C-alpha cells in the first residue's frame, strides 16, 4: 500500500499541468480557434507566477499572476487572429516563440532563486487513511481545481445554452453569425479562457511541481497538451484519462532513470514525445470518433460580413 502511494502522487501531479492547459485549449478549439501558443503562454505564466509568489510571499498572488499573464498572452493572439484575421497556425507559433523568449528575459533575475511551494491540503482523519487518504484527500489545491474545471467545462459545453452557442460557433461560424451570435466575441472569450488555463498550468509548474524557475521549464508540455486535445476527441472526460496516461509515462521515465536500468537518460526523456506520436497515430485511425467531435470550423478565419 505504502509503495503505491508515491507513484500515484507523482502521476497525478505530473498530469495536472497537462490537464489544465489542455482543458483551456479544448474550449478554445471547440469555439473554432486553434491556438498553438500554449507552450508560450505556459512559459510566461510560469515565470510571472513564480515572480509574483517570490515578491509577495503569497502563493495565491503567484497563482493569480500566472492566470493574468496567460490571459494577456492569449489576448495578443486573439487580437491578431480574430480582429486582424491572421493565419492561426503561424500566429500560434509566433506566440510560442515570443512567450519562450519573453519568459527567459523576465526570468533572468530569478534563476536559482528558491521558490515558494504550495502546500498540500490536509483534512484531519480523511487524509490519514492509508493510500486513499493522501491520494484522494491530500493533494494540492490546484489539482482539485483542475478536476473541478474538467467537470465544469464538460457541463458547460454539453449541458448549457452558452456551451451550445460555443459549439455552434466552432462548428459553423457562418450559420452562428446568421443566427445573431457574436462569433468573434464568443471566440475571444474562449481564447482568453484558454490563456488563463495555460497560464495556470505554467504557474503550477513553477509553484507546485518544481518550485523554482528555469528557462524552458515547460519542456514541450504545451505541445503535449495540444496532442491531448486531439487524443481526447475534444471531450473533457477523455482528457482526464489522457492526462493521467501521460503522467504515468513521465513517472515511468523518472522511475527507470532512478533505478539506473541500462538505458541512457536521453532515451527515457524521449518517452513522453514518442508516446505523443504513437497516441496521435492510434487515435487518428479512429476516424468516426474524430469526425463526429472535431469542430468543423477549427482553424478557419471568420470575417463577419462575408
Amino acid at each position, binding site marked *: 500500500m505504502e509503495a503505491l502511494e508515491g507513484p500515484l502522487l507523482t502521476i497525478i501531479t505530473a498530469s495536472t499541468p497537462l490537464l489544465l492547459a489542455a482543458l483551456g485549449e479544448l474550449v478554445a478549439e471547440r469555439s473554432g480557434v486553434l491556438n498553438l501558443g500554449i507552450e508560450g503562454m505556459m512559459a510566461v505564466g510560469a515565470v510571472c507566477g513564480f515572480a509574483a509568489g517570490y515578491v509577495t510571499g503569497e502563493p495565491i498572488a503567484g497563482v493569480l499572476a500566472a492566470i493574468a499573464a496567460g490571459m494577456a498572452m492569449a489576448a495578443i493572439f486573439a487580437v491578431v487572429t480574430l*480582429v486582424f484575421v491572421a493565419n492561426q497556425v*503561424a500566429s500560434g507559433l509566433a506566440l510560442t516563440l515570443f512567450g519562450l523568449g519573453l519568459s527567459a*528575459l523576465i526570468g533572468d533575475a530569478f534563476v536559482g532563486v528558491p521558490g515558494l511551494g504550495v502546500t498540500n491540503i490536509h483534512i484531519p482523519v480523511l487524509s490519514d487513511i492509508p493510500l486513499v487518504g493522501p491520494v484522494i484527500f491530500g493533494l494540492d489545491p490546484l489539482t482539485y481545481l483542475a478536476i473541478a474545471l474538467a467537470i465544469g467545462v464538460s457541463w458547460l459545453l454539453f449541458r448549457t445554452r452558452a456551451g451550445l452557442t460555443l459549439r455552434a460557433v466552432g462548428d459553423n461560424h457562418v450559420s452562428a453569425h446568421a443566427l445573431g451570435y457574436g462569433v468573434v466575441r464568443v471566440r475571444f472569450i474562449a481564447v482568453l479562457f484558454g490563456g488563463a488555463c495555460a497560464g495556470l498550468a505554467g504557474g503550477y509548474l513553477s509553484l507546485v511541481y518544481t518550485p523554482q524557475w528555469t528557462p524552458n521549464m515547460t519542456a514541450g508540455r504545451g505541445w503535449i497538451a495540444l*496532442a491531448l486535445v486531439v487524443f481526447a476527441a475534444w471531450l473533457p472526460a477523455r482528457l482526464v484519462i489522457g492526462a493521467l496516461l501521460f503522467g504515468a509515462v513521465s513517472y515511468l521515465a523518472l522511475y527507470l532513470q532512478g533505478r539506473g536500468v541500462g538505458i541512457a537518460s536521453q532515451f527515457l*526523456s*524521449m518517452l513522453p514525445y514518442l508516446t*505523443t*506520436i504513437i497516441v496521435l*497515430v492510434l487515435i487518428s485511425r479512429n476516424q468516426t470518433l474524430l469526425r463526429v467531435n472535431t469542430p468543423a470550423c477549427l482553424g478557419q478565419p471568420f470575417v463577419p460580413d462575408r
Partner: protein
Amino acid sequence: MAVLSPVIAIALTVFTGFFIFLAVGVDPFEALYVYFVEPLTQWWTVQELLVKAVPIILIAIGLSLCYRSNTWNIGAEGQLVAGAIAGSVFPVLVPEWNGPLVLPVMLLMGIAGGMLYAAIPALLKTRFGTNEILTSLMLVYVAQLFVDWLARGPWRNPEGHNFPDSRPFDGWQVLPVIVGDDVRINAIFVLIAVVVAWFVLKRTLTGFQISVLGQAPRAAAFAGFSQKRMVLLTFLISGGLAGLAGICEVAGPIGMLRTTVSPGYGFTAIIVAFLGRLNPVGILFAGLLLALSYMGGEGVQIALNISDQITRVFQGLLLFFVLTCDTFIFYRLRFVPARSAPRAAGEVSHGSA
C-alpha cells in the same frame, strides 16, 4: 502593399523594441544601435551575419513550399539535427577516409537524413491522417535528445578531454571557405536554392499545383491534384534542405558534432518564410534580417548585459506584426457607423482592395 507590409512590420518591431529596451532599463537609442546597426559596420561581423543567414534561408526556402501548399512542417529544427547526424557518420566513424569524395558523400547523407526524418510525419499524415504539426514538432525533441546522447556517448572524441563533442572534422571533411575567412561554399547552395525554388514556383506544373492546393483546395481536387503526393513532396524537399543546412553547420562553422547543433535556426526559418511572404527572393532578404537579429542579440548581451533571449522576443514580435500587416494586403480597414453594424466599428471589414 505586398512589399510594404513586411517593411511596416519591421518598423513596428523596431518601435516596440524601443519600449522593451526602455523597460529593461537601458538607453534605447544605444541598444537599438548595438542591436541593428553595429553588426553591419565591420567586415568580420558582416561575414558572421552571412554565416548565420545561410542555414536559415536554406531551411526557409523549403518551408515556404510546405506553407504555400497548406502543409505544416514545423519540425525543421529536428530535420536539421537528423541531417547533421546522418552526414557525420563517415567523418566520425571512418575518420581515416579523407579524400575529395568525402564531402559530397557527407552532404548527400545529410540531405537523405533530413528527408527520411521529414518522411515520418509526412507518411503518418498521408497514411493515417495524423496531425503533422504535432508529430513534426515532437520529433524535434526526439532528435535533440538523440544527438545529445551521441555526442556524450558513443560518438564522443576519446581524445577530447571528456568534452561532449565528436572528433573535429578536418581536411576534405570540412566545407571550403570561398569569401573572407568564414563564408563557406554553402552560401552558393543558398543562391542555387533561391533560383531553383523561384523557377519551380513560377514555371512548372508542380509549382502551380503547390499554390492551388494551398489557396483553393477544392479547385485542386477537381483538377485531380493529389494532396497526399504534395504533402510527401513538400515535406521531403523541406526536410532535405534542413538536413543540408544541418550537415553544413557541423562540417562548417562548428567543425564537429556537438550536443547542440543549432540555436533554433529551424524555428527562425518559419518566421523568415512568412516575412519573405513565402517568396524565394523575399526569403533571401528576410533571412539576412533575422541573421542580424541573432547578431544583435549577442551584441546587446555583451555590450549592455541583457539576456540574448531578447532575440526570441523580437523574432516572435516580428512574426506577429508580419501576419497582422498581411491582413492589410487582403482587406481594407473601414470605420462604419455603429448603427448599421453594431460590432464592426474598428474591425477589419472586407474591402475592394
